[in-house]
């Protein structure tokens, strides 16, 4: 796949390059030349001023394979990721069987081999996510695992979490926690607040998330040397807890999802099951705190928590409806529409949130848009105004509240592993 990308805006936070009207020549998966009006005998693609950025990485994707292939497969999930502008993802371990042994890691790796999207694999912290005994960390690390998490639930026992930290740090794992104090959230369907009071739905209080964030930060500090990451953070107090931990010099990081900075609990009134998430959609004050956290660097990255579910699992009563929405297809559009075009986050910072920071946390090599470097690129039409419809969904599932939403900015292509994907 040799190509000349003509007339693009290159923005690379690592090299500091921000230049429009640029051409990029790519041969055999590497960047061979960069400049204006490059002479090349390669097939040329006119990008008409579109942004070319280092490839975006989504640290939180549910590929559902093995075990729940009716929701998503490695093939459909990576296709959804590519269509959303991601050249790399980390898939989460709550599959069936869970990613608790190296065989499941190898299975996913073999299925993802040769894909345009790089697939990193998050393994469980404890065996089968039961929160009881530690997962085989040496074997998982040997198999190439960089992140561990019991995603979908928190490790309930503080004692077990301490041991996860103590043992996990020997492998320099990023220890990612789904922060939920389950004794407070059992049988709940949405955020506890005015809307849950109005709708009569059992409420999932913010404090149930904050308690685990606080506990884990204290444990991480006590153990020392731990790389601790808060998955899909959603509350204002959790933002502040991470901010204080960073100020203390702890290696604590966090991610937010596009839906948690775009929607509030009010969405439950119109979108029913497609507004049921875990953690739930919170309040305007939480979104405001998340924006400040993004601006001041408290929040390291934007991850989608892409969570495909079949129609019948979402279009049902709120108590039984499954948690989560697909997110890969809408992430960049939401980020640009809600953060960049509103002036809340600079484009350079946005690219750090989507590419530089997740790669740093995953301990992956940083990408550079420079001669001789791997061509791992995300291409975005920043100004494109469009309406999201089901025709834009590449996932096997279509559980999203954003159908009909108007966006400004669209991922239009990715280049990685000597392959390209173009929207048109």
């Amino acid at each position, binding site marked *: 796949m040799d190509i000349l990308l003509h007339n693009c805006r290159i923005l690379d936070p690592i090299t500091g390059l921000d230049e429009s009207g640029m051409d990029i020549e790519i041969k055999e998966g590497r960047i061979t030349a960069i400049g204006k009006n490059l002479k090349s005998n390669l097939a040329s693609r006119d990008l008409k001023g579109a942004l070319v950025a280092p490839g975006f990485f989504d640290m939180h994707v549910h590929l559902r394979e093995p075990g729940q292939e009716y929701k998503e497969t490695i093939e459909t999930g990576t296709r959804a990721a590519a269509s959303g502008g991601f050249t790399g993802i980390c898939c989460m371990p709550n599959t069936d069987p869970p990613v608790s042994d190296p065989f499941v890691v190898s299975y996913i790796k073999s299925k993802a081999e040769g894909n345009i999207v790089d697939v990193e694999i998050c393994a469980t912290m404890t065996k089968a996510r039961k929160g009881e005994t530690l997962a085989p960390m040496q074997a998982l690390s040997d198999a190439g695992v960089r992140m561990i998490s019991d995603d979908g639930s928190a490790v309930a026992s503080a004692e077990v979490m301490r041991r996860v930290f103590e043992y996990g740090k020997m492998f320099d794992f990023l220890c990612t926690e789904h922060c939920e104090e389950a004794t407070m959230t059992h049988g709940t*369907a949405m955020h*506890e*607040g*005015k809307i*849950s*009071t*109005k*709708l*009569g*739905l*059992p*409420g999932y209080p913010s404090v149930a998330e904050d308690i685990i964030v606080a506990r884990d930060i204290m444990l991480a500090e006590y153990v020392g040397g731990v790389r601790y990451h808060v998955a899909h953070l959603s509350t204002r107090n959790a933002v502040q807890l991470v901010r204080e931990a960073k100020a203390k010099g702890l290696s604590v990081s966090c991610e937010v999802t596009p839906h948690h900075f775009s929607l509030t609990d009010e969405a439950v009134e119109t979108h*029913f099951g497609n507004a049921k998430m875990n953690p739930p959609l919170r309040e305007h004050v939480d979104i405001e705190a998340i924006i400040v956290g993004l601006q001041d660097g408290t929040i390291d990255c934007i991850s989608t928590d892409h969570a495909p579910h079949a129609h*019948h699992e979402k*279009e*049902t*009563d*709120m*108590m*039984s409806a499954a948690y989560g929405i697909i997110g890969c297809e809408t992430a960049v559009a939401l980020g640009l529409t809600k953060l960049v075009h509103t002036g809340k986050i600079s484009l350079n910072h946005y690219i750090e949130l989507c590419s530089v920071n997740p790669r740093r946390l995953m301990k992956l090599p940083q990408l550079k848009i420079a001669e001789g470097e791997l061509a791992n690129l995300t291409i975005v039409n920043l100004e494109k105004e469009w309406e999201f419809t089901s025709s834009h969904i590449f996932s096997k599932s279509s559980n999203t509240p954003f159908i009909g939403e108007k966006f400004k900015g669209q991922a239009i292509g990715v280049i990685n592993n000597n392959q390209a994907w173009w929207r048109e």
Partner: protein
Amino acid sequence: MNRDLLGIRQLSTDEISDLIRRSNAYFPSLESPAPIPQSQILSGVTIANLFFENSTRTRTSFELAEKRLGATIATLSMQTSSLSKGESLLDTVEVITAMKIDCVVVRHSSAGVPLLLRRHLPQSIRIINAGDGAHEHPTQALLDAATLSEKLGTLAGKHIVIIGDILHSRVARSNMILLKKIGARVTVVAPESLMPPHIEEVFGVEAQHSLGKILSTADAVMSLRIQLERQSKTYFPSLADFRLRYGLIPSRLSECDAYLLHPGPVNRGVEIDDEGADTEKSLILRQVKRGVAMRMAILEWMFEK
């Protein structure tokens, strides 16, 4: 015109008064010892009563109202049906509607199910919410309003006190919405553990954690059922302790001259002592009779040509 009854929230005050008027017309026949004249206004109409959650009173009340208006009815106790065998809610509903149904009366333990059905059923099928989770129980609030209006006249400016498990109560929510719509003053009384957050702002009511002197200013008191299974949680210490603080015990009843309502079934000796449940101020059995009349009125209104 196809009408639904999804919740009190969707009703105008005119519609509420209209329904109370219509139910008043049916009520005398339920009070009289003479046989009830059989109406045929729902002749040819098929109604499915879908009870995904147990109910004896509401289900029976609907069935009687439907039969007295000449409808063809099928009652399905969905707890023991295919839903528990893994069939999805929407599949169940599609199967039932394939049998040519004109109206669905639905009760479900999860809030929002009637609205979900409205999104998926053809517009020609009317929907009545017979109670969804802790969200709404509109027929109960309407029959309560009809019961209260009979004794108090207009409810505008009247003080209604609702006591008990507000958090889990659809009866409380529908009553708060209805009573505020027609201009009553509403005070809800519950421990903080059974009071939904921001209730004053969301419903425009006053909220209290203790009864204090509230009963002396009440025109009517609505006591809510404490679900015994909630004892296993930690919402309150024990039924006996709850009775001491919130029960309508003789010393409290002697302080007030209010009418007494309860949606039933009553836990005697918890929410209300015998001294209260059986006095002339108690409207509990009247509510039951009013329930049938109100459900007849609702069906008449819904199927009005």
